[in-house]
């Protein structure tokens, strides 16, 4: 089953590749592999459509199949978001071999006015977020509000056009259910790695 899965991903055509670090498309924009019906508490029940730096009209369900490390952010964030993104990168670089290609990262922007596909693409570049495992999304204000509500992220735009927001890192399991959340700006690496190991099929 696992072999089949990786085979499918491995044979993914490198169409639409960018002059980035890899040829592959971000998780949001690979070929959709439909599974059975999603569970009652899966975020993938959401029908909202999202825009990435690569593609538009994306349903979150396309991310199904791998654990996702999720954070909300905005590209013009001066304080917390760079730290959050750094934390996620730190997690990525500490993934053991067995997890390396099994975990994805998802950043969703609050800033529906200023963060468009182009801005997200620039952010991907300046932050050195590889295509293979990082999805950057923006969407309609209502949809962002709804996703934030589901994750339990509170946010508000302040007088300078910055967003005050709670800092929350969410781990979604392969089915899109919230498995664990971490508040604050530090990820307890050991905890997360242990959790991720339970979500990824054991190598044979």
């Amino acid at each position: 089953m696992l072999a089949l899965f990786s085979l499918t991903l491995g044979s993914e055509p490198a169409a639409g590749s960018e002059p980035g670090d890899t040829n592959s498309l971000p998780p949001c924009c690979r070929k959709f592999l439909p599974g059975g019906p999603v569970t009652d508490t899966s975020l993938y029940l959401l029908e909202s459509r999202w825009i990435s730096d690569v593609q538009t009209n994306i349903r979150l369900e396309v991310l199904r199949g791998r654990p996702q490390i999720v954070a909300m952010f905005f590209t013009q964030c001066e304080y917390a978001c760079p730290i959050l993104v750094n934390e996620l990168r730190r997690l990525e670089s500490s993934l053991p071999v067995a997890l390396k290609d099994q975990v994805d990262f998802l950043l969703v922007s609050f800033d529906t006015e200023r963060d468009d596909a182009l801005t997200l693409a620039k952010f991907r570049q300046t932050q050195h977020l590889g295509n293979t495992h990082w999805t950057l999304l923006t969407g309609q204000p209502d949809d962002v509000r709804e996703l934030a509500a589901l994750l339990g992220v509170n946010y508000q735009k302040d007088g300078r056009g910055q967003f005050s927001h709670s800092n929350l890192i969410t781990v979604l399991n392969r089915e899109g259910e919230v498995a664990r959340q971490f508040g604050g700006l530090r990820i307890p690496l050991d905890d997360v790695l242990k959790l991720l190991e339970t979500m990824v099929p054991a190598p044979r």
Partner: protein
Amino acid sequence: MHFVLFSRMNWITSLLIWVLATAQASPDQAGNPPLLVTIPAGIYRPLFRGRDDLPEVEVGRFLLEDAPVSNDDFLKFVRARPQWRRSAVRRLFADSGYLRHWIDDLNPGNEPDTLRQPVVNVSWFAAKAYAAWRGRRLPTTAEWEWAASAGFLGPKGTNEVEFKQSIAGWYGTPSPTVLPVVRSGRPNFYGVHDLHGLVWEWTADFNSSLVTGDARGDTGIERQLFCGAGSQGAQDRDNFPAFMRAGFRSSLKASYTLHNLGFRCAADFPSKAAPSP
């Protein structure tokens, strides 16, 4: 000509409603659906502010329902949208307490007042879906607070002793086991009932408040709610009910359902009727 036709249709409709009403339930039992009333533009002064927050938020003219959504109103919705019936709703969108006060999927209860009581035990998602079904939306927190700041006699309730006493009395009392019916409260200056005194209400951006319950300390703003010097960042230190609402909203999650939490709808003011500059 149009007018004659319209009034005749109206007359026929009224007769039909009367016939139906006498045949089934008395109109008293079901009550009237909420009506949209116009709330004029104004300035909402948020209770809590961060260093960079605007002290004032402009609220444009909008429409707000004059009463919370009742069990009867909500029954019509779940009839039309089966995915929102108690037995069908997805757990992601409503916790297990969803509509728990109802007898079953399509029966809110048999007490004489049941249909006219405000619907409670509904999640934010359910409230949003209801509003969309009606072609309306939930009010923003700023809109809700702006409308709720009006007194009985004028747009500024804080000037009215009687108004202040009446609402402080409610916020200081536990919810009654049997809820009063909608519109049982005295209407405010704009003709809106029950903004205070009946149930708490969802707002579209209830999760914009950073007075967080679970991640305290991750933002600077929520400090203003807690501790003795807590109200220093607050606009109006006397406005205890507004403190309570801010704290309440920030403790909610979108799938929560509570026995004293309902909602009402709002709508944009129709733009073609707006005066040209």
